[in-house]
């Protein structure tokens, strides 16, 4: 159990001390003491009240202290971490495998124990095409879980890959975004023969298509203009990110779900996982749609940080991020998946904004409950006080 505003508790403790002191030193009508030799005391004004030095009205004091404690616990944003699952398991499943998600969820275990269904959040993603999307989706879901459920302390990532995937250069870069161990499992699935034959197409020089400049009407294959341009912090290509305040005006059609649109092969991604460069096979080779815009005169794409970008862009058709099918077990051999120096689970606090995370009580009903109890106790205190007077 923790509190968001510890100073409220400190103030409550000080208040309790003041209340206790007032009880201890309350002025009350003094009980006369019978003394036969009272006549030998000098006559004078005798105060009717005296300072009480013995603790009195213990029940009233108890009610007041309990009301104060409830008020403080309610106002301090008390967080009970013991309520609800403390570890949430994020299961990123390939879309084709999602049909059997119930089976995968039921079979998910950790240290020999079956993970309860309530602690698992299954997320579908096109992992067969872009396996690194597992990390993108996982990070998004993890951030949502961490924000919405303050009781969650740790996040575990399980990735369910099909038997074969396309090579994904972004894997290592995105893998680094999840600084904890990852459980990757491979499930057998019929290989898409059409995709395999496409992947076996001859390699030739690519044709680069840049987006039309702002204000000029035009199209970009595989992309549609965004209703409102936004910004993104990094562009990942060739396994290395280029960090800059990128303006993003285009959106991959696969992301917006345009039916019937040809989805190209992504070769570079924005930091949120959205494709930034798509390659389409053509009769003469291939065509690459580059949805990346730089300010006029910018040297971002020729800077040393953009070596990966340049390599991707200059690669022959089907190169760099090869379209050939590779075994998912190659990804499983990634030594970082079970790196011992990384924690087994990702700490949810890592994904939380410190102030935001501590601002609200957990569970949400806790503060109203404390405040209600406090009101009830104050009512009882008033009733008890009026009863004592009557």
């Amino acid at each position, binding site marked *: 159990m923790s509190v968001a505003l510890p100073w409220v508790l400190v103030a409550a403790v000080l208040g309790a001390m003041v209340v206790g002191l007032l009880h201890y030193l309350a002025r009350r009508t003094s009980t006369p003491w019978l003394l036969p*030799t009272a006549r030998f005391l000098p006559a004078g004004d*005798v105060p009717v009240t*005296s300072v009480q030095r013995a603790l009195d009205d213990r029940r009233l004091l108890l009610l007041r202290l309990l009301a104060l404690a409830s008020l403080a616990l309610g106002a301090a944003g008390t967080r009970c971490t013991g309520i609800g699952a403390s570890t949430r398991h994020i299961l990123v499943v390939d879309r084709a495998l999602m049909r059997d998600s119930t089976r995968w969820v039921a079979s998910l275990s950790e240290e020999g124990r079956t993970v309860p269904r309530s602690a698992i959040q299954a997320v579908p993603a096109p992992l067969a095409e872009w396996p690194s999307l597992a990390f993108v989706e996982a990070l998004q879901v993890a951030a949502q879980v961490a924000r919405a459920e303050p009781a969650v302390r740790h996040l575990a990532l399980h990735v369910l890959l099909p038997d074969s995937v396309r090579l994904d250069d972004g894997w290592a870069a995105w893998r680094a975004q999840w600084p904890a161990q990852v459980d990757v499992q491979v499930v057998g699935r019929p290989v898409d023969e059409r995709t395999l034959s496409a992947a076996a197409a001859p390699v030739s020089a690519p044709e680069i298509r840049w987006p039309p400049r702002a204000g000029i009407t035009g199209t970009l294959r595989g992309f549609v203009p965004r209703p409102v341009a936004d910004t993104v912090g990094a562009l990942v290509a060739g396994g290395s990110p280029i960090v800059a305040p990128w303006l993003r005006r285009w959106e991959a059609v696969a992301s917006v779900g345009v039916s019937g649109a040809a989805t190209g092969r992504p070769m570079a991604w924005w930091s949120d996982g959205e494709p930034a460069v798509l390659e389409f096979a053509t009769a003469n080779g291939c065509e690459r749609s580059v949805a990346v815009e730089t300010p006029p005169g910018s040297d971002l794409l020729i800077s040393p940080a953009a070596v990966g970008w340049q390599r991707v862009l200059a690669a022959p058709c089907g190169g760099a991020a090869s379209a050939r099918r590779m075994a998912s077990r190659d990804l499983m051999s990634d030594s970082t998946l079970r790196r011992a120096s990384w924690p087994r689970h990702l700490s949810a606090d890592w994904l939380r904004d410190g102030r935001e995370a501590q601002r609200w009580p957990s569970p949400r009903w806790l503060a109203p409950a404390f405040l209600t109890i406090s009101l009830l106790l104050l009512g009882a205190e008033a009733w008890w006080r009026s009863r004592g007077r009557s």
Partner: protein
Amino acid sequence: MVGEFAEYRLYRQGDDPRTLDWKLLARSDRPFVRLADDRAQLPTVVLLDASASMAFPMPGGSSPSKWVAASAIAIGLLAVARATGDPIGCLVAHDVVPLRMAPRSRRGTLEEIMHRIGATTPSGSAPLAPLIHEVPRHARLVVISDALGDHDAMVAAVRGRLGAGGSAMLVHVVAPEELDLPSGVHRVEDPERTVEPRQISSANRRAYAESFGAFREAVATAWYGMGASYALVPSDRDPVRTVRALVAAAASSLGAGRA
């Protein structure tokens, strides 16, 4: 004279001149009266003060109440007197149920007195002086009181008895709490409501000690001054030791009288 000669005693003011032994006066130049058997049995009457002030300290206090101490001393003195064959009697000054037992020698008198005293609870503010007048003149009177009631009237009554040849003693019982007031500030009231409520504080503690000390001194002076005996007894003192001391003092005064 009725009865057989028993002993001589120094003449006191008020003695019957016919009892003077003139021959002895001529030989010794000191006046002695002849006491017969019937007068040698000196009745002893205890007058107990059962006013509300004697109930102090209340039950639960650190010391026994003045009433408990006074009762024990009274019974002890009466037991000693009864053992020497003297008739014993008892008077208890109480507002509601005063006790009047004339001196007598028959068996069971002491037990009856014990029973009656044990059934008495101090209360009210009954005066003692009227009861003193009821005590036979030739009887030995022992007044056990805190002297906080009608003390002046009591002294006047005793003075009259002594003038008529009687003897008297005051056992002045005080509680330790009266001698040394408790610390702190307290609002106090007289259980007999003789004065308005007062306050104990560090400022008036010294004045109280001086005033109460002067009162005790005045009481002692008054009793000694009229030829009576006086003893100040704290209520927490062992009653057996107190009775022994009182009997020894009475015997020595009697011896001095004989000498």
